[in-house]
């Protein structure tokens, strides 16, 4: 167990690099691929190495499945089967990359937009959609899945990720926590407090900011005047990195590096993924009021799945049969979700009182009895 004095050690990297410079993100986002999936020009991937073919193939399958799931959830929302669904279509590289960078023993802290990441984490889709179907709980067991409940109040789960990872490290475990945040969330106080606590206590946390351009309708230019969101790390002593969020190779390379760096005792890392929310905020949103369709179309041309597919095909690592198999698996998954969500969700009103405390107070028992009486009439 380390002492607090050790926790206070500044993050000086080997080689005598001045800490502030070492903490700054690269001038341009890390990328391996150009917009069409060909090799990016120059050394845009910096010090990072191409992820293994095996990892890229797993990512491809998970991204295809994730997108199909996301489309299915959006369709079910339009049919009234879900109360609301915030889509992460177009952000598959971040959603899947974050999960594949983690071990099962690591912790994931998702937001309401990250249901796709829950699916990649292996959580049953009906469980994962419990909250968005209109229930009062997250639907899955956070302790068993090492996945926190999807967080709605922005960035408030970031300090929890710090606490969970700090607790694990104090017990000598090598657990890492990865917390998903959006560009809007970086304006919240808890984002800053979490970065600061993580740095001061040298906690193995990776902060992944998926900068998808909008906080509902407000563009990122109204969230910050910083050179990038990744630059917000240096003020806290946290290393920042910028990535092309629609480049699955770059996302996997940078996130794997960040997670393993944190695991090895390198302290927290802030990763900003430059991506785009191609769908409206939710089904209740009208995005024509705040953005131009041409902008959406331009981002759709930088599609992460298409780029990965082009890359793997050109490398001879993905065949027509592989593509068909991934598509078929995704269709089967979606069909299962459709079937299982065709039933009306049931909720037992008596259970409203059951989990407020470990043991209901006399007042809650009394109120539960009153409700039961009302229902029995």
């Amino acid at each position, binding site marked *: *167990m*380390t*002492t*607090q*004095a050790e926790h206070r050690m500044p993050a000086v990297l080997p080689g005598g690099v001045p800490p502030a410079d070492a903490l700054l993100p690269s001038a341009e986002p890390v990328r391996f691929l150009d917009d069409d999936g060909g090799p990016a020009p120059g050394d845009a991937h910096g010090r990072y190495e191409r992820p293994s073919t095996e990892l890229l193939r797993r990512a491809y399958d998970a991204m295809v499945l994730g997108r199909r799931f996301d489309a299915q959830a959006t369709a079910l929302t339009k049919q009234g089967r879900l109360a609301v669904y915030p889509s992460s279509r177009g952000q598959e590289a971040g959603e899947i990359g974050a999960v594949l960078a983690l071990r099962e023993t690591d912790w994931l802290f998702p937001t309401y937009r990250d249901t796709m990441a829950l699916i990649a984490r292996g959580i049953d889709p009906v469980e994962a959609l419990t909250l968005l179907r209109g229930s*009062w*709980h*997250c*639907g899955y*067991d*956070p*302790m*068993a899945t090492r996945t*926190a*409940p999807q967080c709605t*109040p922005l960035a*408030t*789960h*970031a*300090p*929890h*990720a*710090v*606490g*969970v*990872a*700090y*607790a*694990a490290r*104090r*017990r000598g475990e090598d657990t890492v*926590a990865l917390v998903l945040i959006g560009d809007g969330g970086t304006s919240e*106080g*808890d984002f800053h*407090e*979490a970065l*600061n*606590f993580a740095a*001061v206590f040298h906690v193995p946390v990776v902060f992944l900011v998926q900068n998808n351009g909008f906080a509902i309708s407000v563009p990122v230019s109204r969230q910050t005047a910083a050179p990038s969101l990744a630059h917000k790390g240096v003020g806290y002593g946290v290393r920042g990195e910028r990535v092309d969020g629609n480049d699955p190779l770059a996302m996997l390379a940078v996130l794997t590096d960040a997670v393993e760096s944190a695991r090895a005792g390198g302290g927290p890392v802030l990763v900003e993924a430059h991506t785009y929310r191609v769908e409206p905020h939710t089904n209740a949103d009208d995005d024509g009021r705040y953005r131009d369709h041409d902008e959406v179309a331009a981002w759709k041309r930088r599609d992460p799945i298409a780029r990965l597919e082009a890359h793997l095909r050109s490398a001879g690592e993905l065949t027509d049969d592989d593509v068909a198999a991934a598509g078929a698996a995704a269709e089967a998954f979606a069909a299962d979700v459709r079937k299982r969500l065709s039933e009306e969700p049931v909720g037992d009103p008596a259970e409203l009182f*059951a*989990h*407020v*405390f*470990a043991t209901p*107070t*006399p*007042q809650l028992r009394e109120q539960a009895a009153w409700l039961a009486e009302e229902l029995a009439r």
Partner: protein
Amino acid sequence: MTVTMGKALTAALRDAMREDDTVLMFGEDVGPLGGVFRVTDGLAAEFGEDRCFDTPLAESGIVGLAVGMAMNGFRPVVEMQFDAFAYPAFEQIASHVAKMRNRTRGAVGLPMVIRVPYAGGIGGVEHHSDSSEAYYAHTPGLKVVTPSTVADAYSLLREAIADPDPVVFMEPKKLYWAKDEVSLPVRTEPFGRAVVRVPGSDATLLAYGPAVPVALEAASAAAAEGLSLEVVDLRTLVPFDDATVAASVRKTGRCVVVAEASGFAGVSAEIVARVQERCFHSLAAPVLRVAGWDVPFPPPVLEKYQLPGVDRVLDAVDRLQFDDAPDPRFLAVSP
């Protein structure tokens, strides 16, 4: 031995930390300094800075860190330096601390304690004397506890640390230096139990935290005049002891709630509502309140006008219609 409430709290923390190495104490100035009220005095020295440590000065981060550590095997106790300085943590408390068990359908409990030195009477400048208990008591999922005696300070804090649910532990600042003859460790009545401090037959005074000594003094003064007042110390606001309260008021037929916090929409208002719901047919007079005025807590030179005092309590008792005349104060419908 003679023990102050502050030292009893320190002893409770120390004993809990000795018994269970998952118990941690952190916050602002709680390390080598021992806290601005010295409640954590000596803990960093005995247990090391690993188990009693200072954090960055950010209350939301402190509570959020505690949530994560409680999710992962620890029992954090955090100190909010003063009542009003806990407000930055309110979102964490209301949206996560209070709701985590419910929003995970019982899978994730948060065994953590948020210590809040609260209320006035110490000549604090602005933002140092708030009675903030209503915010927490109004939030489902939080237990809210406030001791008025030295023995309760020790016992309730031990129980709070051992509780599987989050507890907001409200420490009346002006009672930190109150002394009593107590042999530690001591255990008193558990959560959810109010205690009759003084039995009586003519009227019930319901009080909690810093108002309890005032109620006791008022009862003594009334006894000298031949009036028998029963004093009930509520101790735990959540869970609330309806049984003890109702039994007392049904017996005496008259009731005054004494609280230091502003009355409007306060815990005292909830208590009045519960008493009239449960005791209406036993009441000989409306349930009255002696609470703080609905003003921002006054500066030191004026705080004596805000704090409930013995005279104000006795005036309220006088208005309990012993002569069957309506309370002149409320004859008019509106001010």
